[in-house]
């Protein structure tokens, strides 16, 4: 009884940490809402005629082989270096059964994306082996990723380690089903995401790096039928070895326009982590003779450490 400030330094109400910045809890303003009606609203991606409903703060969705329904929200707090966590409480009562299908849970952290799949009879991190487990009851799924690695927990127990499955510039979290990746009938209690706690250490699993631009040049014999080519090999292993790399980007180095002289650049399939090859074919008028092609290349991906 006093005009006293109930500061938690003196024993008071401990402030709740808004560490989960992106939260869909099934309700807003005291009533149940669909994700697209939440504040802030989640983006809804629907294919075909999925069903959705919310009651008592629980979202129900049902998709089929011909439909998909996914919700996502932008979350710029997520980063690859800082680590990201998305948590979902859900039950999946029906759906597809193959690996890499079912109810998905995804993080896109501005560099890579991690995806976990949940099915009535099992789960897997994308491209990891499918693990059989009855998931038709309520469980809390947590997908956490940093660097190239991620892990999936079910009810706080780690059930699978895996890796990022794609590079991305987007920062978002999402859940639902995706066209071409199976279907599910599920209920969702909440979905929420946060960066790793500031007191946690990000795992030393590698980081995104761009090398280049580096200049190169090649002489290509002049012929009319386009069968004249050279294969340029670039070895950048002295600089970096990528574990998950984008193809190199080629650009004109000196402004004489690669197009005008009719050069076709083709990345050969062995663009491996330590280097790459390109095939450059001359389609130019023969009067050009042996064109000297000056180019720049850059490459981006996870550096292996």
């Amino acid at each position: 009884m006093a005009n006293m400030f109930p500061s938690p330094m003196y024993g008071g109400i401990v402030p709740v940490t808004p560490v989960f910045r992106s939260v869909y809890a099934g309700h807003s303003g005291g009533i149940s809402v669909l994700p697209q009606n939440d504040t802030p609203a989640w983006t809804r991606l629907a294919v075909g005629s999925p069903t959705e409903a919310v009651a008592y703060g629980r979202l129900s969705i049902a998709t089929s082989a011909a439909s998909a329904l996914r919700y996502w929200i932008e979350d710029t707090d997520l980063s690859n270096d800082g680590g990201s966590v998305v948590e979902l409480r859900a039950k999946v009562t029906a759906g597809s059964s193959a690996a890499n299908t079912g109810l998905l849970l995804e993080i896109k952290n501005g560099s890579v994306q991690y995806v976990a799949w949940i099915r009535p009879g099992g789960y897997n991190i994308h491209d990891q082996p499918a693990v059989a487990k009855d998931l038709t009851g309520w469980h809390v799924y947590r997908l956490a990723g940093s660097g190239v690695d991620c892990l999936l927990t079910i009810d706080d127990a780690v059930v699978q380690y895996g890796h990022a499955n794609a590079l991305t510039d987007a920062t978002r979290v999402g859940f639902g089903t995706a066209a071409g990746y199976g279907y599910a009938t599920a209920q969702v209690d909440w979905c929420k995401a946060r960066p790793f706690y500031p007191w946690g250490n990000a795992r030393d699993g590698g980081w995104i790096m761009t090398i280049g631009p580096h200049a190169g040049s090649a002489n290509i014999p002049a012929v009319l039928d386009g069968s004249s080519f050279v294969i340029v090999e670039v070895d950048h292993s002295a600089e970096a070895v990528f574990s998950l790399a984008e193809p190199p980007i080629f650009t004109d180095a000196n402004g004489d326009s690669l197009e005008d002289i009719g050069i076709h650049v083709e990345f050969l399939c062995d663009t491996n982590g330590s280097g790459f090859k390109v095939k450059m074919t001359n389609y130019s008028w023969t009067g050009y003779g042996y064109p000297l092609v000056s180019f720049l290349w850059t490459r981006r991906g996870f550096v292996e450490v």
Partner: protein
Amino acid sequence: MTEYSRPYASVQYGNGRRRYEVRENDRGWFLYYDLVDQLKAERLVKSAWYIPTAMPADLAPYTLRQTGSDWTDDIVPVDQGTLKGLRLQHYIEDMDFMVSGGPVSVTACRYFYTFLAQYPDPVGGEWWTIEESMKHSANFEDYWDFKKSADGLFVEMIQKQSAYGTFLSNQPIRTIVWFDQEGGLCPNLWWAFGVRRQATADNVDEFLKDNPDIFEEVDDVLCTAFYFGGMNDTHPHIPEGKIYYRWVLRVPISGKPVLCEGRPTAWSGHGEEMEYTEWQYFPVKLEGAELKEQTAKSLATDGVTYIVGVLGDHLVVCELGADSFAFYRVPNAAQPIIPNGGVRMVNFPGQCALWMAPVKFDPGLFDGANEKFVRLRAPAYLYPNYDKARIGYYMYGWTLRGWSSATETYRWPDTRPDWWPPFTDWPPKGPPGVWPSTPPYGWPEDQEWPPRWIETVENPVPPPPTVEINLPREVPTPVPDHPTYVSGGGVYFDHWAADAGTPPQSLLWKLSIEPITYNPPQTETGRPTLLTHTTPFIQGVSLWQNAVVTDNGEDAPAFTALPTPHVLDIHRGLGDMGGVDGSYDLVVTNREENVGFNPATAIRLGATMRVTVGARMSDGTLNSFPIGDFVVAEKTFTRKEAGFTLADYLQMLALEKWTDGRLNFRLWTSKAAITWLLNHCGFGEDWYDLEDIGTYLTDISPQGNQWLIEPGEPIGQILAKIAYMGQEKAAIWCDGFRIKTGCPYCRTKRTAATLFTHQNNGWNSSGCRAADIARAGGEGVDRTIIALASYDEASLIIAEGIDAEETGLRSSEFATRITIGGRDEFGFGLQQTLVNLNASPTDEDPTADYIGWNINHYQAEDNLKTWTDLFSRAFHVFHQIGVRHLNLKRIVLPLTVTEDHYMGKPAKMLWEGDVVKVLGGRGIGAHGKLFRVVQAAHNLQEMRTTLFVKEMVGPYG
């Protein structure tokens, strides 16, 4: 102008739904959990780490490898006396690993810490630093070795020399290792120190014998001293270049460690210019677990490691590996108990191995993806259901979360009052804005604590010299705090349905706790920061489900007119703890010949009765107003008449008892608590009108149960308790339509700014008078009562009779001594007694205050924890009943729906809180005085109003 003809009353009844209600599935509930009790009863699950035995060395610091093949709890209960709550598990981590994540070429402690060896001047005794012992010296390694400790947790910093040769003698060496950094270390720091003594110099005893003065100069003689909580010259009273430490743990060569508190003992200057020129350490009593007694042998063989830290308002000490703490509940120092300065180890005399490192609360290996939590083990089933959209929750405890720039909080201002004793550092212990119950060190023996009154804005009326009352000095207003660099320390709370019902019938919850990390950037040096840490200390969780109040519409009961009442008797007054003090009786015809309508059978219990009163004017028009919607609480009837006992809304809440869980309004604002309860009982916003004076329902008991309400207590009683005990003696009453809180005298809604003007002079307080004038105009008189008809024949307000009294028989009415009892956070009783000294000296004047006998009023309120609370209540009560006053216990008037014959104003009844002025009545001493209405009874049948009024006086006139 039409004239008053006769009184008028009409009643409508409505059997329909009440306007506001809570339907069955919309009901709310409240649960409070004491976390330690729950954990001890195995009702919570804790998160834990499993540390595999085969964890490779490069993936984990030694401390985790040591605990391999074991589960380590994240959260640990502490239950030692007043030390009760949950803390995070602490870890000692190899500092090299902590800083670099792997092997290092230069050990981290050598990088971060500063090293010194000193010797006493053989002539003057002054301590001289040996240059070779410092890091920049080429001979540094002659003095120091760095070696990983056997347990792998620390790097031992071994000072190899025992004596320093001077031209006169070999002098014994004092070894110092200290650490500070830009921005300091974590407030309420957790830190580990350790020592193993080596051989001592042969001539130490001789030296000490020859230099007895050294004992007066040095705090650290013959012991290893761990200083922590450094305060440097950024402190307003610490001289430039000086560092004083708030605490030191002394480990003597033989004996038990002693915790000492640092305090100033000499100073120069005054006020803001004051500087502490001397600082000494005084032992304090450790409670709880006993720290082991050390011997020269034990210190020289195994050595010892201590961990110090803070849990809540306790400073805790334990030996490495111990399960329980020795602790000191700090009575006289502000938070943070350990200031955010550096640490220092001092060993004297001889060679020694010292080690120290920050204590962590997270192993830091698992990506920060994990949470440290406790979770309800089994679902809580609730009546009627769980609806997560309507849930609110609070977590209670101590943390530094509010000590970050992100969530601004409040602290005492830097400026110390001039009269604050220089022996005690400023600020005082406890929440800013209230004086603590323990007087500061050095408080003058001839002055009482809290100190005596000085004039403030809140206490503008000085007490006359003849009235002895104790008034605290002005308490400085708290100021916003803007510290930075603290991260973590918050909590996160999850709750979810535990069953698949629609709606769900049960819930589970999870409470996650964050460690606290202090990370000041090293902008000047560019060096890395050594992260330091502390832990929150969490006691309890409350969560509640808000009720949904359905508004059926203003006319939902569908009112129908009743026959003109035979009797309408309305009585309402002030109770000392709220206003469940009224009665409303209605009698109407019930003759059977009213075919098709007999009120006794046609009106249901719980129906709403809308009552309108006023006057029929001479031209037949009505001047009337509704006085309330009442509830039919009882029916008594004969074949001729039907009687209805009506109740107002507040009276109905006396019937509704709390049954919906463990209710605990700890640290709610009083208004929020009252509002929540009213909503819980189905009161919509048009059914209440509450004052907001910003008071919190504070609770600083270790149990946190001051505002815990047991099931079975009537809601009306809970409301009155909150209003009186938690909202500065507020009155709570129903004005017929709404439940209101406000000033117990004038019934105005007070604010934090006007609060004290409503208690500075009892029934005649300045704020009440201002409100009277605003309400009634003129001199603030609602009605003038003519005690003698010859004063004003035109007036209708001519008293038929006035009975007066002065009483000394009821100590709640008048007392010469008023004592208020409270209880501070240590459990000590606090008592404040105010005495009307005018009542003591013999004075035969019949109007004098002299009584000649003590009439004592005692009032115990354990929720009053501080002198400020206690004073406020004593001041209020003393002003209310500490002065003799005249009661006019029965003034019988014509029905007061009007002021005079002509009724220039709308009809209005006199109610409690209004002011009447009495003209005439010299024989009873009432003439010309103002009186405040305490009770008003209006009888429509007899056209009579009866008042009970109190003379509007206070101690200051």
